[in-house]
């Protein structure tokens, strides 16, 4: 008990800077994912499995697979990103940590941003890195690989950021997963369309500047606005 700071002292105590709270939150989320190694493995495996369902369901014919490759990889990345979102605030809501987060004197924007970044690093980035392998298995033309990686690199953070809003809205509800998907999937359709279109166009030699510009604009916008929306949604859900 000797170290207990008395409330009187406390007013002189250095306040925590927003940055160090941001950092602590980011580190905590990454730590949790590391401890549950599954969080790292599962989005990847899910992505791999879903992609390979398509040849099984549709056809193993290379020509046909080529034509659906871009769309399939994008749709699977979308689903993998969506499903891994479930963990974003759920555990925190259930054990009460979310209330603690909301009661922190730091701007919620940065706390939410930290959690979103952690989520993307855990589930989005690995998917981006694995995508070329799967693209190969679906016979995507080789000249489209880099486009695939770059569009996913721009697009998956948007999925995390948008998804975060959906999870925040539904975190208090009994049934998730699906309701989340139903809310978020339609929001992410533009990203999907642009991304898949860019990849498909890449093998046709069409110029891609426009696609990248659009994706970049969407990313910039969602980086600045989505965490605000998530924060507001969290406040509503905890009510």
């Amino acid at each position, binding site marked *: 008990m000797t170290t207990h700071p008395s409330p009187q002292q406390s007013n002189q105590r250095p306040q925590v800077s927003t940055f160090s709270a941001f950092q602590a939150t980011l580190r905590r989320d990454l730590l949790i994912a590391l401890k549950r190694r599954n969080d790292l493995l599962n989005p990847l*495996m899910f992505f*791999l*499995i879903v992609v*390979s369902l398509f*040849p*099984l369901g549709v056809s*193993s014919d*290379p020509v046909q*697979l080529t034509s659906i490759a871009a769309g399939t990889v994008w749709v699977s990345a979308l689903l993998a990103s969506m499903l891994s979102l479930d963990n974003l605030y759920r555990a925190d809501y259930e054990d009460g940590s979310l209330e603690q987060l909301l009661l922190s004197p730091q701007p919620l924007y940065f706390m939410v941003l930290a959690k979103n970044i952690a989520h993307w690093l855990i589930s989005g980035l690995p998917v981006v890195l694995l995508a070329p392998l799967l693209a*190969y298995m679906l016979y995507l033309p080789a000249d489209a690989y880099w486009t695939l990686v770059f569009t996913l690199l721009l697009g998956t953070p948007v999925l995390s950021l948008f998804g975060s809003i959906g999870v925040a809205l539904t975190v208090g509800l009994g049934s998730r997963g699906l309701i989340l998907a139903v809310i978020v999937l339609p929001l992410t359709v533009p990203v999907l369309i642009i991304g898949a279109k860019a990849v498909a166009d890449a093998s046709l030699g069409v110029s891609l500047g426009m696609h990248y510009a659009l994706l970049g604009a969407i990313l910039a916008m969602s980086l600045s606005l989505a965490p605000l929306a998530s924060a507001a949604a969290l406040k509503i859900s905890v009510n």
Partner: protein
Amino acid sequence: MWLWFSKLGSPKWFYELSSKWLPWLVVFMAVAMTVGLLWALLFVPEDYQQGFTNRIFYVHVPVASISLACFPLMAGAGVITLVWKMKLADMVAKSAAPIGAWFTAVALITGAIWGQPTWGTWWVWDARLTSMLLQFFLLIGVIALRSAIESPDAAAKACALLSIVGAINVPIIKYSVEWWNTLHQPATDLTMNENGANGPEIWVPLLIMIVAVYSFFVISLILATRNEILVRERRSQWVMDIVAREKV
């Protein structure tokens, strides 16, 4: 029978027995592996179609065929775990899953590298390849489940159950995949068996390699299981004695 069973169930007994046999097995594997590898690399004649890629055969086929043994092994261990609650069986099952995943992955990788020169592609959705990929997924599922469950006891039972369900499904998956593929056969002829000449100079080294890789599988399984035994029995006197004796 019962006596034997409960004796076999004793991790200590297994540990001591394997200590005795392990050196011999290692020597045997080293000899077989050396002979097999040298023979395969140096002496096997060039294939008239595949050229020297037939060297890959001697790695790929043993690894692929032994990887198929993994699920039955885990399911067997699972039944023993659930029915007789024998701890050793679960330790074997736990060690077998990652090793099986390694074998499957190496079979996939070597197959892919072989496919590139022979079929002109690293990957096709051929029946055998696809079912191998699915087996890989199943194994990863078991590993993921094991690491997701905190309590070792619950993890043991859950994985035992999943392995059994998986083992029942492996043949179903295999047949359905074969059926799927034979019905819409892709353009390339992907039959693996047509290696042209099939003389003893081809299959004797293969046999040796199969024996060598098999003993390699057994050895790595034993090594991993022994570690698992040490960890789980770390409170018991005999393990503490080993710990005290060993210099590291």
